[in-house]
């Protein structure tokens, strides 16, 4: 019953999205208002059908309806309810259905918020969204159908054990999908602008906001993935340049570049074609990322083993590439600049450098990720591109970006006198010197880390002064603090203030990555029950070693007391989990976190009979700051999204032919 209902809903979604896409593009050609109305209705219908299909699947999972193929594949009577809910995205078919559901939600919200506005662009934008929707509906209806009817078994095997190993594995995928799928919306706006051959000022707002929201989700998702790797995989790191980690980073890089180029576009009316290209690239890279995770081409902790849908996704990627490139080549020259650049040593000049760096990073990571495939295709040899390549390429570019993070916002817009530039650039050197000296005093000697501290100190001072300068000015002007703060920082200047919150988070991330990756201390410890061993300032005592049988696994646990200066701080329980159905046991580390750094224990060898263990003890200063600072970045991004004025007036209809450059003054 559930299987049939699900299939019907998905087929209807396929029909509706295909029809809606055709209607949208047709309405775009004929500029038919009636056509736009119908395209909107089809968009809402698609969203409804997809959400309903997903609800049916969740219902089937929760009621253990093993006559639905996906439930038979991942369900189990023994799994706890929270795992059952999350098993929607634990395996290939369900995750694509979840993708469709998220796309439905995005399309519905975007269509609703723009229902009165941007009539010139909306038919084509909805057309593009629904064309993507049609592809994913096709995937769900055909190659990755989770709703096949099967003979009902009494019980199933349960989801991938890795999903059950840590709560982060349950929340990381939804964030990633919210980030990935959301990039479809700005892609639709960008394509619509190209189809119309015009990118008016009015369209920048929905474009920016629809890019910012998924950017926030993607930022958090990347961090959650790294945090999960750190908490679960046991090698003490959070990033390994695994192909699928790279897949999530690639669209993030181009999206970040686009968010910056859009600021220049908004202020100066230039970089239109470039911004549109970055937005298209972002979407295409999310599809590439989907291909990487779902095709089985790349070997990774993330790989889904079945590879039947690989060719279908590749075909879609190729079609989307052809569409985007053809559109760009035909229309990019029509997106005329409405302003011009003035001087390289200016705010906009630094934005341009910033974009250049992000594009270099994108190509560096893309080439490193796909190079093994190229070598195998050409020479038939297997090889892998590892850390040294990525580190040596990415670290210098990262340093330049951090430098720009300080210098860019310090410089004024437009042409400025030498004196003005000097006055802008000199004071933050104080911040650089302070942080550099502090780092040196605390024993930092790695030249890259010292450089990061210097650039970071500079950027920190610039960021903080840019954040609070407007407030200080208003206070001097006689405003009360509350008026100045709520009006300035949270009111008209809120987007500017929010963007500096993101920058502040980014500065901390840079510094925390530099310190945590260059100042790690690792020591292997072998000891028997009752013995105590010193590791740095800590001393470890092995209390006990025992087996703990659990329903889905057997855990062999080492209980270790961690003390510092004779005071016990924590009892850590690193362990080995042996899941049925896995080729290797999974070591699960345990971590004692403090503000200054983490003390991390992971089991290398464990012997319950001999009551002895070998553990890897890793002291990593500052690593926890990465997770905190990334959350701050995400919150800053969200803050930029809150409408300045009440929604009703913010979405006032804009005449389709209005040329708006220079008329709207951007806050800040």
């Amino acid at each position: 019953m559930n299987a049939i209902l699900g299939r019907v809903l998905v087929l209807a979604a396929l029909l509706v999205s295909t029809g809606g896409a055709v209607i949208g593009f047709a309405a775009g050609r004929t500029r038919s208002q009636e056509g736009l109305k119908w395209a909107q209705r089809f968009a809402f219908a698609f969203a409804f059908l997809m959400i309903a299909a997903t609800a049916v699947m969740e219902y089937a999972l929760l009621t253990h309806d093993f006559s639905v193929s996906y439930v038979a594949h991942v369900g189990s009577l023994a799994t706890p309810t929270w795992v059952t809910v999350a098993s929607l995205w634990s395996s290939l078919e369900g995750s694509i259905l979840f993708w469709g559901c998220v796309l439905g939600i995005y399309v519905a919200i975007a269509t609703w918020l723009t229902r009165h506005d941007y009539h010139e662009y909306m038919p084509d934008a909805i057309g593009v969204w629904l064309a993507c929707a049609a592809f994913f509906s096709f995937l769900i209806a055909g190659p990755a159908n989770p709703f096949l009817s099967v003979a009902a078994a009494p019980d199933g095997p349960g989801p991938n054990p890795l999903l059950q190993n840590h709560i982060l594995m349950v929340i990381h995928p939804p964030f990633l999908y919210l980030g990935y799928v959301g990039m479809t919306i700005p892609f639709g706006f960008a394509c619509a602008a190209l189809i119309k051959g015009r990118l008016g000022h009015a369209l920048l707002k929905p474009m920016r906001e629809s890019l910012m929201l998924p950017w926030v989700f993607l930022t958090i998702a990347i961090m959650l993935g790294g945090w999960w790797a750190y908490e679960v995989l046991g090698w003490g790191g959070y990033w390994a340049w695994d192909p699928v980690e790279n897949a999530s980073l690639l669209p993030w890089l181009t999206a970040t570049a686009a968010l910056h180029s859009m600021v220049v576009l908004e202020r100066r009316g230039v970089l239109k074609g470039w911004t549109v290209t970055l937005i298209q690239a972002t979407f295409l890279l999310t599809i590439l990322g989907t291909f990487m995770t779902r095709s089985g081409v790349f070997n990774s902790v993330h790989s889904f083993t079945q590879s039947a849908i690989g060719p279908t996704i590749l075909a879609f990627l190729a079609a989307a590439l052809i569409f985007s490139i053809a559109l760009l080549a035909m229309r990019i020259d029509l997106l005329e600049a409405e302003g011009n650049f003035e001087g390289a040593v200016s705010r906009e000049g630094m934005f341009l450098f910033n974009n250049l760096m992000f594009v270099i990073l994108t190509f560096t990571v893309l080439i490193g990720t796909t190079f093994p495939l190229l070598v195998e295709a050409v020479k038939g040899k297997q090889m892998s591109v590892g850390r040294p390549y990525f580190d040596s390429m990415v670290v210098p570019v990262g340093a330049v970006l951090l430098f720009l993070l300080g210098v860019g916002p310090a410089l004024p817009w437009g042409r400025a006198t030498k004196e003005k530039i000097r006055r802008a650039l000199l004071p933050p050197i104080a911040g650089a010197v302070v942080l550099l000296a502090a780092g040196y005093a605390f024993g930092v000697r790695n030249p890259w880390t010292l450089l990061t501290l210097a650039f970071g100190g500079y950027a920190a001072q610039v960021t903080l002064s840019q954040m609070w300068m407007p407030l200080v000015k208003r206070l001097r002007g006689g405003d009360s603090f509350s008026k100045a703060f709520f009006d300035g920082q949270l009111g008209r200047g809120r987007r500017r203030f929010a963007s500096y919150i993101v920058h502040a988070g980014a500065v901390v991330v840079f510094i925390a990555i530099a310190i945590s990756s260059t100042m790690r201390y690792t020591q292997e410890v072998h000891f028997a029950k009752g013995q105590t061993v010193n590791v740095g300032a800590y001393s470890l005592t092995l209390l006990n070693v025992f087996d703990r049988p659990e329903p889905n696994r057997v855990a062999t646990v080492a209980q270790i007391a961690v003390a510092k200066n004779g005071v016990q701080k924590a009892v850590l329980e690193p362990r080995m989990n042996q899941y049925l159905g896995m080729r290797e046991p999974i070591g699960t580390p345990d971590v004692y976190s403090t503000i200054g750094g983490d003390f991390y224990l992971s089991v290398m060898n464990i012997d319950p009979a001999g009551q002895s263990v070998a553990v890897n003890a890793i002291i990593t200063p500052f690593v926890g700051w990465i997770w905190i600072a990334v959350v701050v970045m995400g919150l800053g991004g969200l803050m930029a999204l809150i409408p300045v004025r009440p929604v009703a007036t913010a979405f006032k209809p804009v005449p389709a032919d209005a040329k708006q450059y220079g008329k709207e003054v951007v806050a800040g």
Partner: protein
Amino acid sequence: MNRTVLLVGVFIAAALVVVLFFGLGKDPQAIDSPLIGRPAPNFALREVGTGRTISLDEFKGRPVVLNFWATWCGPCWEEHPTLVANARAMQPGVQFLGVVFQDNEDKIQKFLRDRGHAYPTVVDDAGKTAIAYGVGGVPETFFLDKTGKVVAKYTGPLDTGLLQANLQKAVQQ
């Protein structure tokens, strides 16, 4: 029409799609072993049940299917019936040999009693043989020709089709 955009775009897109396309059919699990084409490292290990020492050299003159496994490994349970059935059909023309590591002998004996056995199983106590063969996880299966040279390796559980296809390479030589 902007030709620069078109050319650059087509170049990047074509390169990417072609590379990904060639990646498609490949199995990321099928990791080349540097041992392929080389003589298989010899070993002399204790047989489960009898305690007799078996060395790989004894089997020269016929192809060998060398299967690394362990009782704690789910996929090894999965492929065990395949191995037993094929061994029964093909021995003594083809020699099957199991190597167990990171395990204990009681569990292995119980496993073989419960699930059937058709060929000798040896215990790699110190894990040295697994290291010599570069075994990363279980199951992993090596296919040796009659001169004792490694001709193929498979990572993950075998089914009859995969087993026959790999063994074919060993028989042909």
